[in-house]
C-alpha cells in the first residue's frame, strides 16, 4: 500500500494510491458536484459534471474516474470549470422533462439542486425532449418515466452490481440510447424483483414508486371504512429524514401521533407481526431440524431460508425455482399482519372485515407487489389493501399540514400494537436471525442466548455475507435431541450476495441450517422505499437507531410479548396449528428466468 500526496485547491492531501481525485477531495472537505457517481456503485464517468482542472493539462478531467497521482495539482473551481459544468447541466436539462412542480422528486432531486446551483438558463440549448414518452405504470411497485431520465445509468449499475438481476440495460446508441428492458417490455413483463433499489439510486424522478396515497386519503375520509395502518421497524428510524432530522433519529412517537392526527382509525405496529413471524418461523425451523436429525426424513429441506423480504422471494422464484422448498412457508410480517387484522382484530373489535382497509407503512417497494399477490387473500379479503413507502408516509404527513417536529410522542393502539425488541431489529440485516435465535435458544434450553445482554453481535453489521454458530447445551428434556448440536447460520443482504448463498444451496454444499436473506443492502433500513439518499453511512446510522430502540424495549424476546401469548391463547391456539397454516403461511410459485 503506497501513499501519494497531491494538492487540491492548494491543500496538501495524502491518500492511498488508486484513490480517485473525487475521494481525495472529499477527505479535505472539498465538495465536487456529482450525478452519475454513487458511493454504492462502480464508476461510470459518463455525466462529466465532476470535471476539475489539472495544472499542466489542457483538457478538464472527470474527478470520479481519474486516480490521484503523486504531485498532481488540482483546481476544483475556476471560470473554465464553472463554464463547463454549467454547459453540461444545460445539456442534461435540455433532454430532461423539467416539469419540476409536478414531479414527485421535487426538492429531493440531484438534477434540480445542481441546475439551481449553476443557475441554468433555458436559452442556451433548446429542449430536445423526445415527444410522446409514456410513463410505464405497469408494475405494482415501480414507475418508470423516461422523460426524466438523464441516462447516468445508476439504476443499471444498481440492478447489476448490487442485485445481480440486470433487469435494466442500456439499449440502442448515440442520441437513441436509453435505459430500458429486454425488447422494451414493460416493467410488469420483465424479470424484476420490485426491490426498488433503482428508485433510491436514481438522481431524478425517472424511477419512482407507484403511489397509492390518494386512495388511502379517500378511505380515511370514508366514514364507513375502518382504516388501520401498521408501520415497519425501519420506517421509524428513517422517516425523520423527510423532516430535516439528522439521519438515525428515532421518531417512533411522533410518527404514531402524526398518523393518528391524519385520521387513521388505528395505528398498529408491524413489529407485533414480526414477533408472530418469529414464533411461527422458529417452530418451523425446529420442526425441520427434528425431521432431518431425528426422523432422518430425506424430503426435508435444510437450510431453511427466511421469507420476509418480498424482493428476495421473487428473486428466488425467478432464479432458483427448483429450490423453493428451502424457503420458510411463513408469510412476511406485513402479510401476517394483514391476515390477522381482517380475522383476529376484526373479531375482537367487532368490526366487519369487509369495512377494514389495512394499510402498511413500509421501507419497501416490493411490499406493494406482495400485497397484490393472489396468494395473499387468506382472510377472505385482500389482506393488505395498500403498501406505502416511508417516502409516501412522509408526503402524507406534509400534505396533512402537521408540524412534525412539534408533535408529542404517541403510543401504538392495541390490539396488535405491542412489540418487543426482537421485532424491532427485523429492520436491520441479521435482525431476523438474531430475533429467531433469541427465541429458539430460549425455547430449547429455557435460558436466554449466551450473549451479553442478548446482543448477538456476530450476526450484525454491513458485511455482505455473515456466518455464525450457536451450540445448544443443557437442553430441556423435550429438546434433548438437539443436545450438543451447533446450529450454523448465515446472513446475506443484497441479491448478489444472496446468489452466492443460493449457488451453494443449489449445489448441495451449503453448510448451514438457517439462512436470513434480505433483498436490499443493509436490510430493510436500506430498503427501496426509504428516504433518498441511502448510502453506507446512512445505513449504519439507521441500523444504530434500530439497535438503540431494541435496547430501550422492556421485552426483547418475541415469545415474551404478552399480545403474542394472547393471540395464541385466544385465537391461533398453537404455532404451526391449523389456523396458523391457513392465515400465516403461504406457497410460492416457480417463475421464468427469461
Amino acid at each position, binding site marked *: 500500500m503506497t501513499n501519494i500526496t497531491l494538492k487540491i485547491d492548494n491543500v496538501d492531501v495524502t491518500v492511498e494510491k488508486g484513490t480517485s481525485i473525487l475521494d481525495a477531495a472529499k477527505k479535505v472537505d472539498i465538495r465536487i458536484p456529482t450525478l452519475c457517481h454513487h458511493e454504492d456503485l462502480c464508476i461510470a464517468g459518463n455525466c462529466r459534471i465532476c470535471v476539475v482542472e489539472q495544472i499542466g493539462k489542457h483538457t478538464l478531467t472527470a474527478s470520479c474516474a481519474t486516480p490521484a497521482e503523486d504531485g498532481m495539482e488540482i483546481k476544483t473551481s475556476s471560470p473554465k470549470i464553472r463554464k463547463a459544468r454549467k454547459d453540461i447541466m444545460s445539456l442534461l436539462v435540455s433532454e430532461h422533462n423539467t416539469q419540476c412542480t409536478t414531479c414527485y422528486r421535487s426538492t429531493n432531486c440531484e438534477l434540480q439542486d445542481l441546475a439551481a446551483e449553476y443557475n441554468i438558463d433555458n436559452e442556451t440549448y433548446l429542449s430536445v425532449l423526445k415527444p410522446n414518452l409514456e410513463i410505464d405504470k405497469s408494475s405494482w411497485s415501480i414507475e418508470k418515466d423516461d422523460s426524466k431520465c438523464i441516462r447516468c445509468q445508476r439504476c443499471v449499475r444498481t440492478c447489476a452490481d448490487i442485485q445481480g*438481476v*440486470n*433487469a*435494466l*440495460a*442500456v*439499449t*440502442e*446508441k448515440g442520441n437513441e440510447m436509453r435505459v*430500458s*428492458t*429486454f*425488447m422494451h417490455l414493460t416493467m410488469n413483463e*420483465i*424479470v424484476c424483483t420490485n426491490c426498488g433499489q433503482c428508485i433510491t439510486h436514481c438522481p431524478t424522478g425517472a424511477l419512482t414508486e407507484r403511489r397509492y396515497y390518494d386512495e388511502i386519503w379517500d378511505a380515511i375520509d370514508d366514514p364507513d371504512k375502518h382504516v388501520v395502518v401498521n408501520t415497519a421497524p425501519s420506517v421509524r428510524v428513517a422517516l425523520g429524514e423527510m423532516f430535516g432530522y439528522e439521519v438515525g433519529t428515532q421518531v417512533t412517537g411522533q410518527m404514531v401521533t402524526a398518523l393518528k392526527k391524519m385520521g387513521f382509525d388505528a395505528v398498529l405496529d408491524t413489529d407485533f407481526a414480526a414477533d408472530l413471524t418469529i414464533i411461527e418461523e422458529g417452530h418451523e425451523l425446529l420442526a425441520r431440524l427434528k425431521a432431518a436429525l431425528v426422523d432422518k426424513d430425506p424430503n426435508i429441506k435444510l437450510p431453511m431460508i427466511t421469507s420476509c423480504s418480498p424482493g428476495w422471494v421473487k428473486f428466488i422464484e425467478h432464479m432458483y425455482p427448483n429450490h423453493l422448498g428451502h424457503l420458510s412457508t411463513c408469510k412476511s410480517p406485513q402479510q401476517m399482519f394483514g391476515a390477522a387484522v381482517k380475522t383476529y382484530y376484526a373479531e375482537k373489535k367487532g368490526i366487519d372485515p369487509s369495512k377494514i382497509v389495512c394499510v402498511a407503512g413500509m421501507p419497501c417497494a416490493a411490499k406493494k407487489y406482495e400485497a397484490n399477490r393472489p396468494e395473499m387473500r387468506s382472510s377472505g379479503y385482500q389482506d393488505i389493501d395498500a403498501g406505502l413507502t416511508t417516502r409516501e408516509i412522509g408526503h402524507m404527513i406534509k400534505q396533512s399540514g402537521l408540524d412534525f417536529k412539534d408533535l408529542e410522542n404517541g403510543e401504538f393502539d392495541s390490539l396488535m400494537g405491542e412489540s418487543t425488541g426482537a421485532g424491532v431489529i427485523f429492520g436491520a440485516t441479521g435482525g431476523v436471525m438474531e430475533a429467531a435465535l433469541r427465541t429458539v435458544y430460549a425455547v430449547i434450553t429455557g435460558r436466554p442466548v449466551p450473549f451479553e445482554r442478548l446482543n448477538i453481535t456476530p450476526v450484525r453489521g454491513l458485511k455482505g455475507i455473515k456466518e455464525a454458530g450457536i451450540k445448544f447445551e443443557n437442553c430441556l428434556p423435550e429438546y434433548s435431541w438437539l443436545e450438543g448440536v451447533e446450529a450454523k447460520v448465515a446472513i446475506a443482504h443484497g441479491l448478489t450476495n444472496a446468489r452466492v448463498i443460493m449457488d451453494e444451496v443449489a449445489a448441495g454444499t451449503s453448510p448451514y441450517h438457517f439462512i436470513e436473506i434480505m433483498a436490499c443492502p443493509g436490510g430493510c433500513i436500506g430498503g427501496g422505499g426509504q428516504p433518498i439518499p441511502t448510502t453506507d453511512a446512512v445505513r449504519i446510522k439507521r441500523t444504530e437507531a434500530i439497535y438503540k430502540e431494541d435496547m430501550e424495549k422492556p421485552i426483547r424476546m418475541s415469545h415474551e410479548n404478552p399480545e403474542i401469548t394472547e393471540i395464541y391463547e385466544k385465537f391461533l391456539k398453537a404455532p404451526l396449528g391449523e389456523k396458523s397454516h391457513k392465515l400465516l403461511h403461504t406457497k410460492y410459485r416457480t417463475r421464468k*428466468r*427469461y
Partner: protein
Amino acid sequence: MTKTNELVKKLVEEHGVARESLLPVLQGIVKEERYLSKEAMRDVAEQLDISAAEVYGTASFFSFLDTEEKGKYIIRVCKSITCDMKGKCELVRTMEDILKIKVGQTTVGKRFSLLETNCIGLCDQGPAMLINDDYYTKLTPVKVREILGDLIRKTS
C-alpha cells in the same frame, strides 16, 4: 428443440459460455437467421447465464444485429455526410419508390428491407450501399434501378 435452439447450442459450444462469447454468438445467429428473434436472445441469455436485457442491450447497440425480422435482401444505404452530399437522398427515394416501402421497413413478402447505416468506409466512392454483404459504389438512381431490377427478377 427448435431450429433456433439448436443453432444457439451449436454456437455456444463453438465459442464458449464466457461473457465475451456473446458477440460472436449473436453474429452467428444473424448469419443464419438474418435477425435475432426474441426466442434466440432469451436462449443465448440462458446459455451464457446472463440476463435477457443484457443480451438485448448489446444487440440493439449494433446496427448489423437486427432484432426485428428482416427481408432476404437487406439494403443498407450509407447515411454519412459524404454519401449524403453525393446524393444519397435521391437513392433512397428511388428505392422507396420501387419497393413501395419507407426506410426502416420490410416488403410484405419479406424479400427486401430498406435501412440506413452509419459510415461503411466507402466515402471516396460514395454514395454507397450494402446489400447483405456485397457493396455497391458510385451509385446513381439509374444504377440502383438496375441492381434492384436484377434482384427482383432473380427472386420472382
